[in-house]
Each structure stands twice: as structure tokens, then as C-alpha cells.
């Protein structure tokens, strides 16, 4: 589960590039270029299908064969009440999970990267463990916990689980981004008479904000996409969007699913774009 950690570093950080090595082996370059085109085509094939089929007017219950172009699905993306409800549940879960995980995880990252203290190694291990634990194990362990503690499965248990798997992500993402910061800036501010709170607000927070924002976005994306863990801890009427799709895809696949999925795509890509643009601007200003 460490994946997007890397991802976000690239997307948001790697915008400054170095000069290219001199171009000599033209043929090999072309071959590599061709390979890249093929790989990108492969990566985007399902997405293209999802987006194209959001404009389909399917003949039967399954939106899997092309029938007729229509804009109706986009005109009324929330037409299917049951999917919309599940979608809203997912948004609610993701919002709460992302908020709590970002705050808790951000604080943890601050503690581990700024302070030296006893037990730091242990804390780091406990932080990494959830990431190496597979979803199926995490889901089933939470299931047994709620079961053993007589907790009814529902919205609360889903949120608890989502906060859990976002937490380590946030902490490690922020940690990775603030590594190497010059914390003596804080001391300087304090020496100049700034109060601790003011120092945090004007020095520390702006420093960690990009990391926090990226981590928040990631945990939102993780939460809204999770199926395996959720399937273990959701019950008794709480259905998230991925669960709804997984269960309903047996009897139907309405095009609204494609519309909602395309919307998630647009929003996350949009947010990513804003992030990248801001970093670009900052880097440009810095240089």
C-alpha cells in the first residue's frame, strides 16, 4: 500500500527537469518511444472505454456493448437513486476519513521528523506495518475485532477502517516530504520573539502544507476506491459506491456508473493538475 506515496512525489514534485543527455542513438530512441506509446495506449485503454461508454445508450441492462450515442447519462448523472446514495456514502466516508487521517497523520509526521525521542524506531515500524499488511488481512482482522467487541457493522466501522488505512499513508507521505527541512527556521522565528503558536502558523505549517495537501488528496482517492476492506466492515445498510458496483454488476451495469466514475476521474485529475501547477509556480518563483 505504499504505492501512491511514490506516485504523488512524481506527480507533484518532479516537474523540474534536467538537461537531456546528448541524443545519439536515434533508432534506439525511436524504439523506446514506440514502446512508450504502446504502454500508454494500454494504460489508457480501460479509461477510454469507461469514458466512451458513459455516452452510450445501452440496449439491455449491461452497458458493455455499444448501442447508441446519447448525452442523457451526463445530463442526469444522479438519475439512479441507489447509485447516487452509495456515491454519497462514499463521499461522506472519504471526507471524514481523509480529514481525520490527514490531521492525525500530519501530527505524527511532524513528531517523527522534527523530534528525537525514545521509541521513535518502534513508532516508525508501527507506521510502516499497516502498509505491508494486505487489505484482505486488515479487513478480516477488523472484522474479527468488531465481531469480538459486539460492534455492529455500519457507517462508523467503515470510517474507522478507512481512517486506519489512510493514516500511515498520510504520515509517511508528509514525513517523506518534510525530510531534510531546516527546522532551525523555527528557532529563528522564536528567537525573534514569535510565540510557539505563531511560529507554527507562519513557519511550520506553510512548510508542511504541500505535503499535507498531497496526502489528503491521496487518502481521499484511496478511501473512495476501496472495496476489499470495506466489504468486511460494512454491513446492515451501509453501502459504498465500489460495493454497490461490485454487487450490482451481476444484474446490471447502468451507464450512470461510467458517468460517476468519469466525474471522480475529472475531479482527481483536476486537483492533481492544480497541485502540479502550484508546485511549478513555486519552483519557478524559487529559481
Amino acid at each position, binding site marked *: 500500500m505504499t504505492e501512491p506515496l511514490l506516485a504523488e512525489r512524481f506527480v507533484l514534485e518532479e516537474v523540474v527537469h534536467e538537461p537531456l543527455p546528448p541524443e545519439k542513438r536515434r533508432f534506439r530512441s525511436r524504439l523506446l518511444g514506440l514502446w512508450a506509446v504502446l504502454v500508454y495506449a494500454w494504460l489508457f485503454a480501460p479509461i477510454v472505454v469507461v469514458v466512451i461508454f458513459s455516452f452510450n445508450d445501452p440496449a*439491455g441492462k449491461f452497458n458493455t456493448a455499444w448501442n447508441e450515442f446519447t448525452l442523457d447519462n451526463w445530463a442526469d448523472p444522479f438519475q439512479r437513486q441507489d447509485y447516487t446514495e452509495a456515491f454519497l456514502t462514499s463521499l461522506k466516508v472519504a471526507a471524514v476519513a481523509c480529514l481525520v487521517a490527514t490531521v492525525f497523520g500530519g501530527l505524527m509526521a511532524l513528531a517523527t521528523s522534527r523530534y528525537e525521542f525514545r521509541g521513535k524506531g518502534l513508532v516508525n515500524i508501527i507506521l510502516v506495518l499497516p502498509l505491508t499488511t494486505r487489505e484482505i488481512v486488515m479487513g478480516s482482522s477488523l472484522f474479527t475485532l468488531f465481531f469480538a467487541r459486539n460492534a455492529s457493522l455500519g457507517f462508523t466501522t467503515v470510517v474507522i477502517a478507512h481512517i486506519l488505512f489512510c493514516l500511515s499513508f498520510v504520515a509517511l507521505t508528509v514525513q517523506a516530504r518534510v525530510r531534510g527541512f531546516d527546522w532551525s527556521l523555527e528557532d529563528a522565528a522564536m528567537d525573534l520573539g514569535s510565540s510557539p503558536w505563531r511560529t507554527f502558523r507562519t513557519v511550520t505549517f506553510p512548510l508542511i502544507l504541500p505535503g499535507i495537501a498531497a496526502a489528503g488528496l491521496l487518502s481521499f482517492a484511496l478511501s473512495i476506491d476501496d472495496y476489499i476492506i470495506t466489504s468486511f466492515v460494512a454491513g*446492515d445498510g451501509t453501502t459504498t459506491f465500489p460495493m454497490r458496483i461490485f454487487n450490482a454488476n*451481476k*444484474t*446490471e451495469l447502468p451507464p450512470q456508473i461510467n458517468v460517476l466514475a468519469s466525474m471522480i476521474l475529472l475531479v482527481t485529475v483536476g486537483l492533481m493538475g492544480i497541485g502540479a501547477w502550484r508546485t511549478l509556480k513555486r519552483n519557478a518563483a524559487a529559481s
Partner: protein
Amino acid sequence: MSERPIDPELAAAIDLARRLSRRRFLTRMGLGAGAVALGPTLLAACGGSSGGSEGSGGGGSGDTELNISNWTAYIDQDDDGNAKASGTTIDRFQEATGISVTYKEDYNDNDEYFNKNFSPILGKGKTLAADIVCPTYWMAARIIGLDWVEELPLDDIPNHANLLDSYLDLAWDPGATKHMPWQAGITGIAWNPKLTGGDITSIEDLYDSKLKGKVSFLTEMRDSVGLTMFGMGADPADADLDEINAALDKIEGATSSGQILKFTGNEYLRSLENGDIAACIAWSGDIAQLDPELGIQFAIPEEGGMQWFDTMVVPKGAPNVPAAAKWMDFVYDPENAAAITEYVQYVSPVKGVKEALEAKGGDAAALAESPLLFPDDETLSRLSVFGELDQEDEIDIQARFNDITG
């Protein structure tokens, strides 16, 4: 009252299940003893319950709200797929009673619902949010046996009288005082003639190497094993352990040889439509709901077919029992039941549905003639309900079946 063509035969089929379910009584006795042994824990769980506002046992008296958990695509919807759109059964119920209905299609699997909701919640004396859930007959029998459901307030359900008589003497719920059937159906075989090149009339055809790798079976153990038993000349209603194991052997062989491609729930529909499989074990209503232009065929195999029904039960301690009663009464009105039948195209357990459909005329009247919705005596004589299994046997068989299905 039992002059409907459906009655005597359905009665016969269910009778058989009932005869076999005498064992159930013993099982229940066994459970009773278990409950005594586990007494302290259970009692503590009951006494200390803080889960539901109503506590356990009593059942709530709410009649302004109603929460229903059902299988997907199991009630009438408008063309856009909204089950609560104007004119649908739920909408008319809300209009008529002022009760606001929360209808969730989150009952996806009997075992899964049992392990996530019934057992951990009801089994510890707490309450579910749902007022009505729709387990299949054998699961309903199980949770009724475990005493995890409310007795239905039959006085508030006058339309209970419309329940087909054959459902009234099930050993696990005589008089149907703890459950009301929702829809019944037939398990048979479906095929795509473009791919099979001909009709599939026998279960053995599914095992024919001509269809190798083009066949799917159902993850519902009783359907896959039951049909195979028919094919081997046994009657699944007897639930004979040796015969069941022989059928499992046969399924296992066909799985490892690559004859059976997949075990599925309703998703066989899409595979059949897309041509990824050529023939499969299927549920009658699913096929009836399909677009006829696809040309998908359904038949009860010549050796025999499985019969089953899903139920409505009120879980113990449900907050809105009166509202649940009103719902059951509403959907047991023949007119309302006919509206549901017209959409879901399963066999209705309600008397007078055929007449109601005929009275509607048009397409509805055509449905009244459908042998899959209103099977004739000859058809019914070829159907069986899977016999009752001991708890131990059921777990062993299910485990073995799960190993086979991968």
C-alpha cells in the same frame, strides 16, 4: 382454495421438504441444549444489550419508517431503474400508508449476510437496522430455528390469507407465522443457441465435452448440486448424503477437467449475453427478464429442476414491526403482487396474481400464460426443493463445495 394449478404440485414439492425436515426438529433440540450450555454468555449478551433502542426480543412499534434489505433487481422499478419512482410498488405503499421506506438492495448472498449480520448481531441479542430481510427458504429456516426472528402480527396482515396454502405447513414454520414468502423460482438451464448450435434439454448436456469450457454453474450449492443429482437419477429432495457426495465428485471432476469454466451468482447473465459462456445453470426469472432479442433460452431439464423461494422475515427486535406488517399486507394484495410479478417475473406465492394479470390485459395478460410464472402440474411434478440438511452435514457439504468452486 387450492384449485390454482400451481397449488397441488407446489404443495407436493414443499411437502417433501417438510417431510425431510422432521430432522430439523431434532437439530433444534440440539441447539436448545447448546443454548443452555452457553447460557451465561448468551444471557449476558441479551441482558447487557445496548445495541438497539428497543432492546432485544420485544420488537419496536414504529409505524412511520420501514427499512427493507432485499436482493438486487427484485422489485418493480421505472424505466430508469428507480425502485421508488412514481407509480412503483414502494411509491404507492408510501402514498397509501404515509410510511417512509428505505429500500436497500444489500442482501447479496445468504451466507455473507448471515456471517456479517444475522450471526454477529442477532446472535448476540442486538438488533439490525432492517425491519424486513429476504433470506432464501433454507436460510429463513435456519434463523427461525435459531429464534432470531419476530413472530408476525398476523392480525395486522389480513392479506396473509392470500398466501398459497402449500406454504402453510412447512415444518420449520407451520402456518407461516414467522415468515412470508417473497418470490419463488425455478432453477434450470439456460443457453445461447448461437453458441450451442441446438437446444439443451438435459443436465448431462452441461457435462458434454462439446461444451467444454463454455459452461458455468451457480455458487448456490443447492442449485448446482441439486441439478447434478437429478442428472444422476437422484432426487435432491431426499438430500441423501451419499448421493450429494457423488454429485460433488462429479462437479469436482468437471471442474478439474475444465468442463465448468466458472461458478457464478447472477453474473452468468452478462457472460451468456456476451457469449463468454454458451450454457449455464440459471434462475427462471433472470432469463424471463432478459431482452427476447438476445435469443437466450431457458428450460427445466428433462431430469428435473430445482425449486426455491425467498422470504420476508422480521429480524428479532426490529424497530418498526407494525410498518413491516403493513408492507407485507400491501404486497400480498393480488393487484400489488401482480405489479411486482410483472416486473421481476418470478413465481408469486400470492393467490389471485394470475387473475390480476389477466385483468390488466396486454403484456401482463400474456405473462399470465407463461409456464415459468405459472407452471402447470406436469412441470411442477418435475421440480424438487432441496431437502433439509443437518447443521453438521450442511457445513461439511458447503466446505467441500467451496473448495471445488475455487
